[in-house]
């Protein structure tokens, strides 16, 4: 004990385990007397260490005040974190607080948090962790996530909840860290799995829990075998293909909640994706699952305002575009669909920048036959001759008219470099952001963008938890063909915490494939202005059998006329919308 100033004694928290001194069985409960506190008092008695009576009485008053505070049936964490949230700019939304309350007070800490994407499941989980820590109900906590999200969890817990967790690196960590974040893939492997199975956890959190939808996988069996008091499973898609997936997830946290699988199938499954007795099933699900949706009751997102900017190519650019397109079509006919991927890339790049197109073409030439090689060489020469880039001219013009911070997205690194070169030359300060940056560098670029530079040129749409809510202008220099990637791009700025309307500027080249893509994404699917929840589920439901990009490419390869392409895209768009409504009306109405 170290005397740091008159009468105030520094004491470390007790390290010795608290033992059970006495146990009594009563009618309805068990009575336990612990020895830890009294042992410490006796220790002080033996060493004749008496604190002053003033501190003793003050401490008793403090005990009473603290216990009185904890009697509240509301969340302690909210008051406790108020100041921190003010500092770091966190606003807890009512649906997040309600979720935490329900999990703690109604569900006894066993729940699936199945909010739609972007509603803050991690915040809800963090709030629950903090609450359990403050109430002294949890000490040993394990968070299992995909490896890519380890640091995101670490930062979220630290910044928003003042929880310092460890990130698992070695076998030693399992036993020695009270709050540990680990990759599920690592944890389920030996020798880790055996160590974890022996430890009794107070709280287990599984992020991206839909990965445990199959009960015969090692991951599922491993999580099922972990000793846990409370368990939270986070997923935006508790059902992807089959109601059995949902059954399996629930069996992990509350086996028996839906009965045995046979009885569940009889009572609640009409078809694989179609529930029977949906109302009854929903009643049972509500006891273990919380699903908040994006609507007026949860969050009012700001608007997305779309500004299409049509760029006319110069005759020379147009001629090269036509030649590249022709090359792609002919090559694909000859090579079949097996080697379609580089051709798709080429077709997409030609709408972005000729520099990117030239680099890809050059790489492709290594594996070309002599016929293609001659055409490619001539194309490459012409691409190198083009000095103008009408899209970049339009971009410069656009940027000149915007005063606030701007994120420019492109799919290609070569385009990114070219854009930066042009903008820097025009006197703008720019930063590059891409997937090759380390986590630390990404944070640094984000910080620099927030503090210094006006423009961020990014090739990464996912961004792994790096969010840019301080910016509300997004420029799509080229359009990704996959709606998922587009949503991820916009989602970097249009998410919780964005207080302004988000302006989306789409640069699209006239009379090119981009025009059609824009037609599909904007006019048919309305991707830009509305947030389509569960895009991945819808895409899965469409059962395309290949990637979204390939499906679109097929349309372009099979049809020459603009009218025909439009007609096919119309059909494709309608299929998407139908898939969307099917997903909602079949399984989702029970969630």
């Amino acid at each position, binding site marked *: 004990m170290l005397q740091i100033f008159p009468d105030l004694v520094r004491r470390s928290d007790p390290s010795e385990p608290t033992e059970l001194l006495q146990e009594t069985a009563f009618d309805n409960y068990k009575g336990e007397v612990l020895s830890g506190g*009294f042992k410490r008092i006796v220790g002080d008695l033996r060493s004749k260490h008496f604190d002053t*009576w003033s*501190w003793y*009485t003050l401490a008793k008053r403090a005990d009473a005040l603290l216990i009185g505070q904890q009697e509240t049936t509301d969340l302690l964490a909210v008051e406790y974190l108020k100041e921190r949230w003010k500092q770091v700019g966190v606003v807890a939304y009512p649906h997040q607080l309600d979720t935490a309350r329900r999990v703690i007070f109604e569900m006894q800490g066993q729940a699936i948090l199945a909010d739609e994407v972007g509603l803050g499941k991690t915040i809800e989980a963090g709030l629950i962790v903090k609450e359990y820590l403050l109430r002294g109900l949890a000490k040993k906590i394990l968070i299992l996530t995909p490896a890519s999200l380890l640091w995101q969890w670490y930062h979220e817990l630290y910044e928003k909840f003042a929880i310092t967790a460890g990130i698992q690196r070695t076998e030693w960590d399992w036993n020695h860290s009270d709050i540990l974040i680990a990759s599920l893939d690592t944890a389920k492997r030996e020798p880790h799995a055996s160590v974890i199975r022996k430890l009794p956890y107070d709280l287990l959190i599984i992020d991206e829990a839909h990965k445990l939808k199959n009960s015969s996988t090692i991951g599922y069996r491993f999580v099922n075998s972990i000793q846990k008091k409370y368990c939270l499973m986070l997923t935006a898609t508790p059902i992807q293909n089959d109601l059995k997936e949902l059954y399996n997830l629930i069996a992990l946290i509350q*086996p028996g909640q839906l009965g045995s699988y046979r009885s569940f199938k009889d009572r609640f499954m009409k078809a694989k994706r179609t529930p029977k007795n949906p109302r009854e099933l929903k009643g049972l699900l509500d006891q273990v699952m919380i699903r908040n949706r994006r609507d007026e009751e949860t969050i009012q997102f700001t608007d997305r305002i779309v500004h299409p900017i049509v760029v006319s190519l110069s005759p020379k650019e147009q001629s090269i575009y036509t030649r590249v397109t022709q090359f792609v079509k002919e090559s694909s006919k000859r090579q079949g669909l097996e080697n379609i991927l580089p051709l798709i890339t080429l077709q997409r790049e030609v709408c972005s920048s000729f520099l990117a197109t030239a680099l890809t073409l050059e790489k492709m030439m290594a594996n070309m036959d002599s016929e293609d090689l001659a055409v490619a060489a001539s194309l490459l020469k012409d691409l190198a001759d083009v000095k103008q880039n009408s899209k970049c001219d339009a971009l410069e013009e656009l940027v000149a008219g915007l005063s606030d911070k701007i994120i420019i997205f492109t799919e290609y690194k070569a385009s990114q470099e070219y854009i930066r070169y042009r903008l820097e030359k025009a006197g703008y300060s720019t930063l590059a952001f891409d997937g090759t940056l380390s986590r630390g560098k990404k944070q640094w670029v984000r910080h620099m963008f927030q503090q210094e530079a006006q423009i961020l040129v990014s090739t990464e749409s996912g961004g792994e938890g790096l969010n840019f809510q301080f910016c509300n202008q997004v420029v799509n220099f080229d359009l990704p063909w996959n709606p998922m990637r587009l949503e991820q791009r916009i989602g970097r700025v249009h998410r919780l915490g964005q207080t302004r309307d988000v302006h989306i500027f789409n640069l699209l080249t006239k009379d090119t494939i981009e025009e059609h893509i824009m037609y599909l994404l904007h006019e048919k699917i309305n991707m830009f202005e509305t947030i389509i929840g569960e895009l991945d589920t819808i895409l899965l439901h469409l059962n395309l059998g290949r990637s979204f990009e390939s499906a679109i490419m097929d349309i372009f390869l099979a049809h020459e006329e603009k009218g025909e392409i439009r007609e096919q895209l119309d059909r494709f768009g309608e299929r998407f919308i139908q898939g969307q409504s099917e997903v909602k009306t079949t399984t989702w109405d029970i969630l």
Partner: protein
Amino acid sequence: MEQLVFDFFKLCSLNPVEIRKGVWQVQADDGLMKELDGWRSQGRLLQFTFDQRLAEIYGADLICPGSYRLNSILQVIRKQGRLSQAHIPHHYFHEPSIQKKILGGLGAQRAYVVNSSQQYAQYMEIEILTEVRGLHKKESLHTVVVNLFSGKVLKFPFPTHLLRAGGVPQGLVGRRGCSFKQAFANAAAHLHQTLAQGEQKWAEEAHSKLVLEESKLREFFVGNTGSDEFKAKQQELHRRLHPVMRMDALRGALLFTPLFRYRLVVVDADGSERTKNLSYDPIGNLQELD
């Protein structure tokens, strides 16, 4: 709460100054700041207020139920005062009246006091944190005082208002007839008994939930209830839902109370005289005749 905060600073030999109406300032040194905010903190001018509006205007630390600053202060305070001692001085009691009462209490026997002395009886005050865990956790504090001579729990409130800080000379302390461990066990048993007679809804609710969940678990493992997995899940369920009342001591104090000792000569009806020792504890109203 406000008084508690000011008392805390006072005990730290600090005197907060009201720099604006409702905003206080105190120069906290390194030691205090490290205790409050962790080892990386350094001494600084600590400004605090109890008014949320003022906290926002002046950026002062807000002290209100649940606030970070209040919690940090409470944590520091609660680490103090684990064991203390206090006494009740003899002069709070009118000794001649006590002597009269004792002699009167002997009934038909005649007695007179040969000599008297003043010692201290020992009591132990134990503050026990009781935690009931059913569907929810609820904590409550109970203060139990145990007579260290008899080991009995005091059934009526101890007159804490009479206590004065500090112990008494060891030579004046009467003997102890009960170990500290026994005293704690008696206090806990007394508390269990008292609480068992009280409201039990928390346990009943948790118990019925446990029964319900266990039946669901059996349905899930139908035909396989002898498996290790079933046992593990059942154990998990009990760990989560089985109602428990848990007690642990938070702090304790030795309380020294006056003990009046008399050497008496008792005269029996036949005129024979016997010498007796009698001690009287006015707090416990305990009279012991040798």
